C-alpha cells in the first residue's frame, strides 16, 4: 500500500474536526436553555427563548456540521481545494462560534450590543467562507449534479446571510423593512436554499456510497438542485410583494421540494443491498419520515382552520424539521465522515508501511447505536414538549443535553483513537526508515 496524500495536498484533519466537535456543544447549550427557561419557551415561536433555541440549533449545530463537512467534501467530491485551509478554518470557526453565542444571548436580551456584534461576527465569518469556497469552486466545471448542487447551495448560503444581515439592521432600527416577511424569506433560504440543496447535493454521492443503494433517479439528480433556488426566488418575490393569490401555490411548491427529496431518498433506502440497516441508515430514514410528517402538518394547517389556530403547530413543525430532519441526518453523516477522515489520515501517516486499522474500529458500533437511540428519545420528548410544554419541557431539555453530550464523547473517542494510533506509528518510524 502506497502513500495516499502528499502532506501539502492533505486538507488538515483539524480543519473539519474543529467544526464537528463544536456542533454538539451548541445542542447541549440548547438543552440547558430549555431547562433554564422552562415551558414558557414553547408559548410561541416568537418567544426570545424559542428564537435563541432555534438559532443554537440552526446557526450552531447545523452550520458547524455543514461547514466542517464542506472543508472535506469540496476537495474529495469536487476536486476543489480551499486555499490556506488551516487559517480559513480557524477564522470561520472562531467567528461563527462567537457570533452564534452572541446571537443567542442577543435574543435573550443580554448583554447590550450582543445582537450587533453577533451579526458582525456571523456575517463576516460566513462571507469569508463563501468567498473561500467560491474561489475553490471557481473554474471547476460542473461535470456532475453534485458539483452544480454545491455551487447552488453556496449561493443559497450567501442569500441567507444577506437577508439575515438586512433583518438584523431592521431590528436594530437602521432600516425599515417588513420583519415578518423577511423572517419567512430568511427561513426559506436558510433551510431550503442552503440546507436542503446542500443536503441533496451531498446525498447524491453519500446515500448510494454509504447506504449501498442504487443512484438517485436521473429526474432528481439532474433537476432538483437547479429547480429549488428558482422556486425559492419566485416564492420570495411573491412573499415580499404580498401577492396573496400566488403565495399559497408557491409555498406549496417549496414544501413539495422537501417532499420530493424525502420521498426519493426513502425509495432508494428500500432498495439498499444491506440486509440490516446501520445507525446512519436508521438516522436518515427517521429524518426523511420527519420531513414528510412536517410537510403533512403544514398542508393540514393550510386547509384546516382549527389546526392553523392551534399555537403549538409551528413549534411542532420546527422540531420535526430541526431535530427530526436536519439533526438526524447530520449525526448520521458525522458517523461516516469522522471515521473515514481518521482512517485516511492514519493511512497517510503510515506512509504505506503501516496499515491503518479498520474504519469500523474508530468509533465502536455499540457506542454509535446507543447514542442514536438517545437522539431518537430526545426527538420524541421534544415533539411531546412542543405539544404539551408543561409536561415535557424538562425531560426534553435533559434528553437533548444528554444525547448531544454523548455525541461529543463519541467524537472525542474518535480523536483519542487517532492520537493513540498516531503515537504507535511514530514509535515505529525509526524502524520503518532503517527497514
Amino acid at each position: 500500500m502506497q502513500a495516499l496524500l502528499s502532506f501539502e495536498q492533505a486538507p488538515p484533519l483539524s480543519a473539519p474536526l474543529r467544526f464537528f466537535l463544536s456542533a454538539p456543544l451548541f445542542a447541549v447549550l440548547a438543552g440547558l436553555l430549555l431547562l433554564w427557561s422552562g415551558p414558557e419557551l414553547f408559548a410561541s415561536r416568537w418567544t426570545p427563548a424559542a428564537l435563541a433555541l432555534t438559532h443554537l440549533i440552526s446557526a450552531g449545530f447545523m452550520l458547524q456540521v455543514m461547514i466542517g463537512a464542506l472543508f472535506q467534501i469540496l476537495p474529495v467530491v469536487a476536486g476543489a481545494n480551499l486555499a490556506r485551509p488551516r487559517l480559513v478554518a480557524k477564522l470561520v470557526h472562531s467567528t461563527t462560534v462567537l457570533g452564534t453565542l452572541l446571537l443567542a444571548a442577543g435574543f435573550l436580551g443580554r448583554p447590550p450590543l450582543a445582537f450587533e456584534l453577533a451579526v458582525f461576527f456571523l456575517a463576516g465569518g460566513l462571507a469569508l467562507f463563501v468567498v473561500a469556497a467560491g474561489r475553490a469552486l471557481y473554474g471547476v466545471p460542473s461535470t456532475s449534479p453534485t458539483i452544480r448542487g454545491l455551487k447552488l447551495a453556496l449561493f443559497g448560503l450567501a442569500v441567507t446571510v444577506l437577508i439575515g444581515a438586512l433583518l438584523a439592521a431592521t431590528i436594530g432600527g437602521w432600516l425599515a423593512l417588513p420583519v415578518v416577511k423577511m423572517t419567512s424569506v430568511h427561513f426559506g433560504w436558510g433551510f431550503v436554499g442552503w440546507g436542503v440543496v446542500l443536503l441533496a447535493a451531498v446525498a447524491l454521492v453519500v446515500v448510494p456510497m454509504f447506504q449501498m443503494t442504487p443512484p438517485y433517479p436521473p429526474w432528481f439528480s439532474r433537476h432538483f438542485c437547479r429547480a429549488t433556488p428558482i422556486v425559492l426566488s419566485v416564492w420570495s418575490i411573491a412573499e415580499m410583494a404580498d401577492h396573496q393569490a400566488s403565495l399559497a401555490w408557491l409555498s406549496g411548491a417549496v414544501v413539495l421540494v422537501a417532499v420530493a427529496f424525502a420521498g426519493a431518498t426513502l425509495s432508494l433506502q428500500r432498495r439498499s443491498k444491506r440486509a440490516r440497516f446501520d445507525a446512519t441508515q436508521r438516522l436518515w430514514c427517521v429524518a426523511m419520515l420527519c420531513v414528510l410528517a412536517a410537510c403533512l402538518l403544514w398542508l393540514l394547517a393550510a386547509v384546516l382552520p382549527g389546526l392553523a389556530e392551534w399555537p403549538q403547530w409551528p413549534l411542532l413543525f420546527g422540531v420535526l424539521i430541526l431535530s427530526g430532519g436536519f439533526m438526524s441526518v447530520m449525526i448520521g453523516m458525522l458517523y461516516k465522515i469522522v471515521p473515514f477522515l481518521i482512517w485516511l489520515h492514519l493511512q497517510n501517516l503510515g506512509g504505506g508501511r503501516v496499515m491503518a486499522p479498520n474504519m469500523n474500529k474508530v468509533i465502536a458500533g455499540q457506542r454509535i447505536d446507543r447514542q442514536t437511540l438517545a437522539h431518537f428519545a430526545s426527538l420524541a420528548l421534544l415533539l411531546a414538549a412542543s405539544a404539551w410544554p408543561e409536561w415535557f419541557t424538562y425531560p426534553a431539555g435533559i434528553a437533548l443535553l444528554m444525547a448531544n453530550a454523548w455525541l461529543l464523547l463519541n467524537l472525542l473517542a474518535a480523536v483519542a483513537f487517532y492520537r493513540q494510533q498516531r503515537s504507535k506509528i511514530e514509535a515505529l518510524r525509526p524502524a520503518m526508515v532503517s527497514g
Partner: protein
Amino acid sequence: MAAEVVIDARALEPPEPLLRTMEALEHLDSDSTLVVLLPREPYPLYRALAVNGFGWQTECRPDGSVEVRIRRQST
C-alpha cells in the same frame, strides 16, 4: 506482453475501492495497465496516483460511472 488488470469497485463501500486499487498498484508491472471501474470521479485517488508516480486517463461512461486507466509513469 502488456496485460490489463481490472477492478470493478462500483458496488464497494469506501474506503474499499481506494484500498483495493492501491494494493493492486503495488504489484503492477511497468508495461501493464490497471483499469478501475468506479461510480464517480475519484479525486482522492488522483492525488495518491500523482504522489506515487502513476499516470492515468479517465473516461466517463453514459451511466455516470467512470473508467480510470492507470500505468506507471516512465522515469
